[in-house]
């Protein structure tokens, strides 16, 4: 299996629709893995996924414990004030130990790696946001149809 260049170049489109701390990482990690392996990658942030690239929220994403059957705590306790914040802080520490970058740094890394990032027009309208509310690495704001056109021939992952 050599990179002969004769076959069509692989390309990956990742749609990030969730804004919790734990659900932000999978899309970023997959897009980064694609770029490291020479696969083109682009990300589309929509609905709650916009929080991942929202300048005001990017550094404050929270773990989602309530309604999450994998949560290490009973839902009654997970729902108490401050518990999610505490668990998020714990996870941040653990990730730091594993040298997994914080979200903001991850977005910068993806940008440096040549992954293209886009915000969803409809979601921005819904949350009364504009492109200026997003981190500068977001290249453009697109409709879902624009993103589909851009993803022709790509493998699409929805998170």
């Amino acid at each position, binding site marked *: 299996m050599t*990179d002969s260049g004769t076959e069509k170049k692989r390309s990956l489109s990742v749609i990030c629709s969730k804004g919790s701390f734990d659900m932000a990482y999978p899309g970023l990690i997959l897009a*980064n893995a694609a770029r490291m392996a020479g696969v083109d990658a682009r990300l589309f942030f929509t609905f709650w996924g916009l929080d991942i690239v929202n300048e005001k929220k990017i550094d404050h994403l929270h773990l989602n414990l309530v309604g999450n059957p994998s949560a290490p705590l009973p839902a009654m306790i997970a729902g108490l004030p401050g518990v999610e914040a505490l668990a998020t802080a714990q996870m941040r520490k653990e990730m730091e130990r594993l*040298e997994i970058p914080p979200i903001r740094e991850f977005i910068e890394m993806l940008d440096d*790696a040549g992954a293209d990032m886009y915000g969803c027009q409809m979601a921005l309208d819904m949350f009364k946001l504009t492109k200026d509310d997003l981190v500068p690495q977001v290249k453009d704001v697109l409709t879902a149809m624009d993103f589909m056109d851009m993803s022709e021939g790509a493998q699409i992952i929805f998170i």
Partner: protein
Amino acid sequence: MSLETVQTDPEGYLANREDWSEELAQELAMSMGVSLTEEHWKVLNTARAIDAESGSSPGLRKISKRSETPIKAIYKLFPEGPAKAIAKIAGIPKPKSCL
């Protein structure tokens, strides 16, 4: 050992790391369209050093930090899939890290 005689696994990583030499690295790089400069060598030697110390082929982030070469610069040096290209040229296994 040259590009013609050296054995690789199906993905193109060296089958026996003892086969590696700087000359072979040049040839491997050329076959990927990369001509090695001092900057490339700094990255490759860092990858080899981390692998030798830790016994684990490093991902890009580690190589970037240790070699003090920004991620962006690494993608310029090895444009087509730097994590794979670096490991192949440096004669170390496929990286185990996701970052």
